[in-house]
């Protein structure tokens, strides 16, 4: 199995040890999977030679699921069970979703204000957006495994840069449900910048304008020798090509004076609107024709000028975000060396024109805007899997898109980590008690730029209990925010006097609980006739084997960092894992592995220290040589 081949990070692996890794662009309209073969990134096509997989999932009675073109074909005849643009629902409740009234789905009713992601009632039962997305990811995983002839070590899955914590967590959960090991969640514009930067050997400051089916991102990056540094990012996670379709759809209804539409007609007309939008990119003047189930005939002259006019407010919104991202990066439009266009919606001529006008230059479109994100993700996956040689690699420094903070007195937000902070980031702030003898403190974590809690997204609430009773203002509660390299937040709180700790990994209130994920996993394995336990044991064995080999390699190169006694302790832990590896006791193997991880923490730390010293020593020598 490919996972067993271990190398030091940054070290090259011989060609025969190439580890299979892919990049997945999980898009609103279409999804793609790409990989790097013989140093060349390419999109993996399906059996019929098609690159794109329409992000459409249809549930059928009896448990069958159609994904992609098959589902898309049936969207008008079976709109209730055919989910399109599910990405817009990820990590969202019903009240978060725009134009929900014109959607043909049967949403599961929840009690007023009940937190939680929306669900759609289908013929196969209620489905969450995470499950729907997992169906798409599963098809892409199988496509890649077939094409590459083996199991994947992992995937880089892309998300809009402007996705908040709930949306990122939902994406990671979907991957987990689809049996995809996520090497990293990567921001879409950053992925595009990798593909462009490496392909064109670009240096300088670039703007990536990414208008997808349902999301808009603008990222400002600095590219210099092997470093991709995101300076700022902005956008709107609910603005995309779909909204242009929707404007046109409303315009058609208005112009043709149509009565309230059946779900069937609404879907057909939406499909028609998208078609007209796409045609308008090539023909400035055409007619919109449709026949409804009521027999009503629509026949409207439609011009690209009118279309540009009715969608101008949407384009303006994107330019506003561009202006803010530039100002956050401390730059003016003329300081941008190149503008990269990403996403199918950037094919609209009036969008290109507006972007060209804003930045004062013709945007770059030489890589297919539909594929560039998947290609960049594949390159990053190849790097993370350890398939590239040291010196032949690059470094990615990305940021969080939205500020993270806590609710304080009076419903105000205290920002702990400001937007555009480079990740990973850890930051702590001290708070105190408000009343005498207060023994608990409620902690409410929010994300957003506004001053008022009610204007921000609520991510989690938890409570620190068991604070020793003290006078008001004398307890010191340190709240630590940690954002990892995937952009996912965890929060811990500790009373500094007594050391009582309450810690949680933020599971946004819109996300799924671990129990829900476990149930979904059970169900999906049940349906596939696989045994979850067997799979879990095998995964743990692979992980343990990997751990063994990596630890042995570390001992071989840096064993001198340990005393004889420390080395013995590590070797005992190694022997323990080895002894349990062939067995079938999952719990014992897991705890032996965990003990080894724990027992090598300090060792890993010392090795890191040595590595940093080496890096800086190298720099000083270079400087002397100059």
């Amino acid at each position, binding site marked *: 199995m490919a996972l067993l081949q271990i190398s030091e*990070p940054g070290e090259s692996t011989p060609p025969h040890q190439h580890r299979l890794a892919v990049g997945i662009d999980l898009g609103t309209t279409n999804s793609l999977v790409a990989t790097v073969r013989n140093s060349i990134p390419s999109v993996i096509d399906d059996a019929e030679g098609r690159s794109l997989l329409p992000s459409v999932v249809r549930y059928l009675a009896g448990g069958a699921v159609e994904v992609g073109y098959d589902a898309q074909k049936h969207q008008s005849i079976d709109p209730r069970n055919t989910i399109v643009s599910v990405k817009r629902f990820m990590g969202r409740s019903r009240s978060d979703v725009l134009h929900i009234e014109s959607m043909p789905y049967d949403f599961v009713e929840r009690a007023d204000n009940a937190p939680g992601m929306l669900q759609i009632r289908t013929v196969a039962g209620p489905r969450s957006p995470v499950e729907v997305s997992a169906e798409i990811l599963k098809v892409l995983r199988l496509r890649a495994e077939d094409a590459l002839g083996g199991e994947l070590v992992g995937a880089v899955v892309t998300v809009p840069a402007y996705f908040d914590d709930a949306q990122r967590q939902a994406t990671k959960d979907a991957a987990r449900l689809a049996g995809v090991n996520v090497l990293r969640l990567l921001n879409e514009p950053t992925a595009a910048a990798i593909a462009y930067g490496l392909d064109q050997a670009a240096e300088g400051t670039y703007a990536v304008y990414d208008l997808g089916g349902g999301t808009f991102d603008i990222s400002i990056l600095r590219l210099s020798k092997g470093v991709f540094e995101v300076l700022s990012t902005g956008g709107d996670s609910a603005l995309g090509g779909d909204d242009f379709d929707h404007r046109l759809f409303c315009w058609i209804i208005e112009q043709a004076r149509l009565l309230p539409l059946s779900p069937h007609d609404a879907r057909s007309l939406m499909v028609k609107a998208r078609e007209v939008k796409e045609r308008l990119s090539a023909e400035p003047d055409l007619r919109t024709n449709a026949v409804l189930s009521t027999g009503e005939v629509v026949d409207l002259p439609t011009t690209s000028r009118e279309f540009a006019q009715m969608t101008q407010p949407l384009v303006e919104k994107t330019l506003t975000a561009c202006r803010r991202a530039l100002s956050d990066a401390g730059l003016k439009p003329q300081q941008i060396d190149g503008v990269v266009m990403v996403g199918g919606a950037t094919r609209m001529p009036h969008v290109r024109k507006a972007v060209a006008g804003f930045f004062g230059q013709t945007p770059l479109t030489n890589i297919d805007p539909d594929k560039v994100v998947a290609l960049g993700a594949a390159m990053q996956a190849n790097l*993370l899997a350890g398939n590239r040689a040291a010196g032949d690699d690059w*470094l990615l420094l990305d940021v969080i898109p939205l500020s993270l903070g806590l609710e304080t007195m009076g419903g105000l937000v205290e920002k702990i980590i400001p937007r555009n902070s480079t990740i990973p980031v*850890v930051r702590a702030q001290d708070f105190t008690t408000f009343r005498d003898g207060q023994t608990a403190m409620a902690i409410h974590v929010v994300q957003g730029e506004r001053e008022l809690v009610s204007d921000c997204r609520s991510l989690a609430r938890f409570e620190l209990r068991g604070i020793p009773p003290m006078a008001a203002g004398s307890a010191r509660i340190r709240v630590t925010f*940690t954002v*990892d390299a995937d952009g996912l937040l965890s929060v811990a709180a500790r009373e500094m006097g007594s050391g009582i700790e309450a810690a949680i990994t933020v599971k946004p209130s819109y996300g799924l609980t671990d129990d829900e994920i476990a149930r979904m996993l059970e169900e999906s394995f049940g349906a596939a006739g696989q045994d979850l336990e067997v799979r879990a044991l095998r995964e743990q064995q692979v992980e343990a084997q*990997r751990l063994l080999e990596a630890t042995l390699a570390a001992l071989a190169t840096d064993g001198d960092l340990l005393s004889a006694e420390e080395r013995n302790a590590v070797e005992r832990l190694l022997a323990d894992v080895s002894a349990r590896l062939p067995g079938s006791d999952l719990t014992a193997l897991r705890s032996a592995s965990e003990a080894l991880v724990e027992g090598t923490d300090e060792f*890993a730390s010392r090795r890191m220290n040595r590595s940093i010293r080496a*890096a800086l020593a190298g*720099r000083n020598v270079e400087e002397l040589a100059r």
Partner: protein
Amino acid sequence: MSHPDHFALFALPARFALDEAALDEAYKAVQSRVHPDRFASGTAAERRVAMQWAARANEAYRTLKSPRARAAYLCECAGVPIQAESNTAMPAGFLMQQMEWRELLDDARRARDTDGLVALETSMSRARDRLIGDIAGAIDQRADHIAAAGLVRQLMFIEKFGDEVRMAADVLAHPREARA
């Protein structure tokens, strides 16, 4: 973690005057060794340690890169906290200057005077440069961290006020946009 040594992490001398290019280069050299992307297929211990070190490097870089944060950090390391919230005492001259700037901003806002705002922005950035020079003198030449802390508080005011001026200019340039 009272005072993690940000300068030592990047092998830079602990003083206010900074070779920015050397900082950038050292930061990238450290990140290219410790970033979690280097250990995406490493062990859980390696991934955890990588995440801690990379976060530390980001924090150190952020602190040293900004003159205000760097000066505040040097003062704190020398045992002189900035106490921006509790210590609001400012020299009378600076307070007068503040009031004058405030009035200029209000007037320019009311008169929708873009040129006035630009002029104000220019004088703010001059005042900022001057303060940074004074801070360098206080810390590097005289090792007077108490004086430096007072100057840092002035710098904090100037940077905050500068943001307000920029925001006002932004509102004049794009009046219809809602602001976060």
